[in-house]
């Protein structure tokens, strides 16, 4: 009896928690979900790392790497969600648009006089380069989407994929390795890549130092930050590293804000309608081709931005960073999170990077830190030893191959998701596209009957 009552109590409390969560305004519940996922991920990796003796610095280094990669993914996944999740535009050329952004930025900012080994660029300031990169990615998106408006969705996918490959091959080709426009030597550097200003140094320097120049000493903000971090014993290099990651977090926040507003609007409603049935949408008087163009260009510009901040952080890009596989990783992240949901896009990026992408190598590090396993060079040696009654070589081999085995994991997870949860983690959420929270709207007639349920939090602003 008492047990029953207790469990009843528990479930009631759970229910009320759930109700309270659902009663929150949309933006609050969204942030809560994202924050909870992030904290959960940090807690999981942090506790695991600390307990198994990776040490504080090892753990924070991993957390920073995970955060950086997750934010980079979140940027692209959000853009892809705008294309595919909202509008149903099956863009499988994501890597190509990222390449356009990153390379435009690289060529714009590279040193015009790089010495004998390097490729010359225009030597423009970094912000100009970033803006140019986004504009170029958007314009290229425009070029791709115009002919593609006339073709069916599956052919559109082929066009985008082919296009991304064309971009990558153009970058790699010897013809564009170095060329001359209006007397200026420029180039993509071909397969060798191109060097330019390191974003992960330039941006922290702007934040910390006067005029972005370390020689001129700290600025007001930089002084505050460094004094504070110094007091709690954090090294300056670590501060600089984290500042770049924080910049990424701010970028994700800005893009998230932009896309949530885009989605929760009559414009976003047209996007969803196009995804569901373009002819019906046209028959309601909507100029769907125009909407598709706008949305595709916007998404491509964001992909360009992501390409710049992700692949360009080290001040170096080469064509191998933009292989088609990158596009598919981004799709997996979106499908995990739930396409059609901006919150789901960010959560998907976090889970994909933290658990699937960085998880297995992390597990490998933890195991190697604690157990001294044999490391046979082939699986054959492991199997032979297993036949002899010793499983350790096989386990050792498996642990050694964990970073590669994760690709099998991706496939397995994807199949499982398609079968058991095709909507992803958050794709089932009811997120009506309107600047007003439609979930709480009640018919005026019904409202007269019970006024209690209608008051409180109706607008998402």
């Amino acid at each position: 009896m008492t047990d029953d009552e207790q469990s009843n109590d528990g479930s009631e409390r759970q229910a009320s928690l759930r109700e309270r969560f659902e009663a929150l305004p949309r933006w609050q519940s969204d942030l809560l979900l994202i924050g909870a996922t992030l904290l959960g991920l940090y807690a999981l990796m942090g506790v695991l790392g600390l307990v198994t003796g990776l040490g504080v610095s090892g753990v924070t280094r991993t957390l920073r790497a995970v955060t950086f990669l997750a934010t980079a993914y979140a940027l692209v996944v959000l853009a892809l969600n705008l294309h595919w999740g909202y509008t149903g535009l099956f863009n499988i050329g994501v890597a190509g648009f990222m390449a356009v952004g990153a390379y435009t930025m690289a060529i714009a900012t590279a040193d015009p006089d790089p010495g004998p080994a390097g490729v010359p660029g225009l030597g423009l300031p970094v912000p100009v380069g970033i803006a140019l990169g986004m504009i170029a990615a958007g314009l290229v998106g425009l070029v791709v989407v115009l002919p593609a408006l006339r073709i069916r969705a599956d052919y559109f996918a082929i066009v985008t994929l082919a296009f991304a490959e064309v971009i990558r091959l153009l970058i790699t080709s010897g013809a564009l390795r170095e060329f001359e426009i209006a007397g200026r030597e420029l180039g993509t550097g071909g397969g060798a890549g191109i060097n330019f200003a390191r974003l992960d140094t330039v941006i922290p320097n702007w934040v910390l130092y006067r005029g972005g120049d370390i020689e001129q000493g700290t600025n007001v903000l930089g002084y505050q930050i460094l004094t504070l971090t110094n007091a709690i014993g954090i090294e300056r290099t670590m501060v600089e590293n984290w500042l770049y990651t924080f910049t990424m977090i701010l970028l994700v926040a800005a893009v998230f804000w932009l896309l949530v507003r885009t989605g929760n609007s009559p414009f976003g409603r047209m996007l969803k309608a196009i995804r569901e049935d373009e002819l019906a949408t046209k028959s309601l008087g909507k100029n769907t081709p125009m909407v598709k163009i706008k949305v595709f260009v916007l998404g491509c510009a964001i992909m360009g931005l992501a390409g710049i901040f992700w692949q360009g952080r080290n001040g170096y890009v080469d064509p191998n960073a933009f292989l088609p596989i990158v596009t598919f990783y981004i799709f997996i992240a979106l499908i995990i999170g739930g396409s059609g949901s901006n919150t789901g896009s960010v959560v998907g990026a976090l889970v994909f990077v933290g658990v699937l992408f960085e998880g297995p190598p992390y597990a490998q590090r933890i195991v190697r830190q604690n157990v001294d396993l044999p490391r046979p060079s082939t699986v054959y040696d492991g199997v032979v030893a297993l036949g002899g009654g010793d499983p350790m070589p096989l386990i050792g081999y498996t642990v050694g191959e964990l970073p590669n085995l994760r690709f099998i994991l991706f496939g397995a997870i994807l199949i499982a998701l398609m079968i058991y949860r095709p909507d992803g983690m958050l794709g089932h959420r009811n997120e009506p596209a309107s600047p007003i929270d439609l979930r709480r709207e009640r018919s005026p007639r019904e409202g007269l009957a019970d006024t209690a349920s209608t008051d409180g939090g109706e607008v998402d602003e």
Partner: protein
Amino acid sequence: MSETEATGVENPEEGAAPLEVSNLRKTFGGVVAVDDTSFSVERGSITGLIGPNGAGKSTTFNCITGVHTPDSGRVVFEGEAITNLNPNQIAGKGLVRTFQIARELSEMTVLENMLLAFENQQGEDLWRSVTPGLRKRVIEEERAFLERVWETLELFEIDHLAHEQAGNLSGGQRKLLELSRALLTDPEMLLLDEPMAGVNPSLEKKLLERIHELKAQGYTFLLVEHDMDVIMENCEHVIVMHQGRVLSEGPPAAIQADEQVIEAYLGGEV
């Protein structure tokens, strides 16, 4: 005399047929789906378009609404040629259609479906939807739209389904949703493609009541329908198509007595 002339000058369109189709022709490969079809629809009437399967009714609909481009012929709506316009442009002129198989937007709620219908919404402009100061106006407009949506949903008695995903609705409810959604576009004339297909008798009665109410308000209807009783009891004018052509045209009683029509429906090739 002079009075009627004066009103005629003031409203040149008044009385003239809002929709005129002349010599419409559409082929698919070797199949002639619509062949030299001409008819006009009277203002404020319910006109029925009937014919056996494959008579070209739906193709005619698609040619009128811009889904297909006719090979030849002209479509004039309110004195304006709309023959080669896009579906969205035609809908924008006030000629709005529904589909044979209801095209609800399944993964959107009924409310979203309805809100989509309003034309020229401020918030359909990406810039206005996103920019902080301008968004306020979008929200105000949305509130006004919502009021009309609730009114319409109550009129069609589907307000209890407002938060349901449109894909979860029954066939008849979808038809109601589609018709009410089409109404919110502020049309002059509605083209309904088999509005009663798959609708149970009580719902059918309700739908017809709505259509008559709307007709009384001045809307013009052209409907394709297979149910002869519906056509004969509700239309003032009936157009019969057969093998891509207009076979016969006239008031229901005359059509029912027409030998050719009986022949087309009962005998001969389908």
